[in-house]
């Protein structure tokens, strides 16, 4: 086992740090203003409607929540799986997990029809609702990861960080299972109704969380001009490739399972062939730019050692993540419910018709506001807490 790395707050007074901080604060405030406007005017100013009831805010929120769970990857690898080479990154990994979750929850809350009734959501529980479980899973995650972070940072209590890490790992797997099951348990919708969505969301969390983590790690080291050895990046790069392949595996399995039964052919034809924007997002952005291109960047000998290559791979994984969640959440609702099998259906409520949805600027602002809040929290924590190793040299592992 390596000697304990030394941690320090980032001490930079660079204009970049303050510039980023101000930018994120501004975007967060714009997000809150947009949410307030939606609250006053009602949701008719958004693109969401009675057929597509969840839209872009949910894509952003679920991205952040899923990435939050995955951001804890490196802490888990160090504490639970004994991969001590990841230990220097464990603290930042935990802080980022909390920041991303808080950002995601803020979006979910502010998109509610009645965000003022948060207290109702916290005092009235229907325990058969997977949503109610998630409220407990999300708040529990914050508490557990905070405790875990504290045990990692308090020298005298470090021996407790392993059990805390195990609890945090079990909890975050439950959290992503719960998030995937929000969709997986919707038995009446052909786009969902699959237990595979839970493991799919787990592997998505691994990749999305790692991509966000890697980008922010590189950013913060650069901001504070700290030394970062390439060997650390190599490990992150290989992990990212592995996780992206795991997503591809579960996506293929999900669609093959649906394709096997004739009853789901119409849905699969919609997503894979005739769904317009959803089909394009699936094949071009999610599979092409979000999966295959990052795999090439990560594994092809030509880019294997390039830091810009890794940055690009991470950014592409995140772009692909948004496309994937958009196809799952919005595309899944756009495909009409099959209430009358064997009939062509038509009504003033758009029965039998492909749902239509165009994100409004308000939703974009709210979503970006959530992302900015998460980044703001992470940047502030980096400044006030010793969570980042002073350097990551080859000798340390």
């Amino acid at each position, binding site marked *: 086992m390596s000697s304990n790395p030394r941690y320090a707050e980032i001490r930079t007074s660079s204009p970049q740090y303050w510039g980023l901080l101000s930018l994120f604060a501004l975007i967060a405030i714009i997000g809150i203003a947009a949410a307030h406007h939606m609250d006053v005017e009602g949701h008719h100013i958004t693109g969401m409607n*009675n057929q597509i*009831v969840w839209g872009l805010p949910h894509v952003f929120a679920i991205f952040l929540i899923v990435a939050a769970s995955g951001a804890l990857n490196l802490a888990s690898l160090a504490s639970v799986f004994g991969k001590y080479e990841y230990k220097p990154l464990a603290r930042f990994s935990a802080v980022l997990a909390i920041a991303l979750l808080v950002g995601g929850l803020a979006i979910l809350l502010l998109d509610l029809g009645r965000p003022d009734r948060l207290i109702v959501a916290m005092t009235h529980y*229907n325990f058969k609702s997977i949503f109610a479980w998630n409220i407990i899973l999300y708040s529990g995650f914050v508490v557990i990861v905070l405790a875990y972070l504290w045990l990692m940072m308090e020298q005298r209590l470090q021996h407790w960080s392993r059990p805390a890490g195990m609890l945090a790992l079990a909890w975050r797997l439950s959290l992503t299972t719960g998030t995937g099951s929000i969709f997986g348990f919707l*038995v009446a919708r052909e786009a969902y109704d699959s237990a595979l969505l839970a493991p799919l969301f787990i592997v998505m969390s691994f990749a999305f969380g790692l991509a966000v983590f890697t980008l922010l790690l590189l950013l913060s080291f650069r901001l504070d001009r700290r030394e970062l050895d390439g060997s650390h990046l190599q490990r992150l790069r290989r992990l990212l490739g592995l996780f992206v392949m795991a997503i591809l595996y579960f996506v293929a399995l999900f669609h093959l399972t649906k394709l096997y039964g004739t009853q789901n052919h119409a849905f699969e034809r919609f997503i894979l062939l005739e769904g317009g924007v959803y089909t394009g997002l699936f094949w071009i952005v999610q599979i092409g730019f979000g999966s295959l291109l990052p795999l090439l960047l990560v594994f092809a000998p030509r880019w294997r050692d390039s830091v810009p290559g890794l940055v690009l791979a991470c950014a592409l994984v995140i772009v692909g993540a948004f496309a994937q969640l958009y196809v799952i959440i919005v595309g899944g609702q756009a495909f009409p419910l099959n209430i009358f099998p064997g009939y062509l259906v*038509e*009504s*003033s409520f758009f029965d039998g018709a492909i749902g239509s949805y165009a994100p409004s600027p308000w939703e974009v602002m709210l979503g970006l506001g959530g992302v900015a809040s998460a980044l703001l929290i992470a940047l502030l924590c980096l400044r006030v807490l010793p969570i980042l190793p002073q350097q990551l040299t080859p000798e340390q592992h």
Partner: protein
Amino acid sequence: MSTDLDDTELQSSRRRFMQAAGALAATVVVPGVLLYQTGQSANAGERTPRWGLLIDTNALSEADVDACVQACQREHGWHSEDGSRTDAQWIRKVRLSDKQNGHQRVLPMMCQHCAEPPCVDVCPTGASFKRADGIVLVNKHTCIGCRYCMMACPYQARSFIHEPLRDQLPVAPRGKGTVESCTLCVHRVDRDGANAVPACAEAVNRNDRKAILFGDLNDPDSEISQRLRSVGTTRLRADLGVDPGVSYQGL
């Protein structure tokens, strides 16, 4: 020292205390228990109704279904004039055409008041609820507007209120930012019981022909139960096992 004596006194006083406390507890609890039992036995004789609808699509013309929709709008004060995707629709006209032979049907579609309602299962706060008599409603005071019930409903029966409301009616309180759907005219049911006639049924039923029949599915002698026994009916998405309270004849 007289510790022994003290102990005896102490035990005796403790015994007296326990007796008094026991008597007090019995005095307080027993009447409650008796009242509870009386209440239970009073209910035991009555069967809880389960309200449902039988919709005869053969007896409904396109104009009839339009009349159902308009009657519901008048009764509850919801509007859907401009056909916007954000407008609430508690009941809607659905036009069906058989893919194989082109046979056409028109029917009214609304909340199916399931015995196992998915909207109630998924609601995080319990705002979506089913009354003892089977009517599925939304508690407007605890609905947080998350729309998960709309995701879970197999019938697309629910609407989210996207805009501020005006001119609400006392029988149907509504609220921006919450979800709503057909109430089975619960205000009429609570007033008239088994004799209630929901607004949609009132709009299309004639003396000789009840195109939409309301009644107690749990009462084997009710008109609806007798007709359900004698004619072939369909419950939508019966494969999901949610046991809808609405049946369609002629589908």
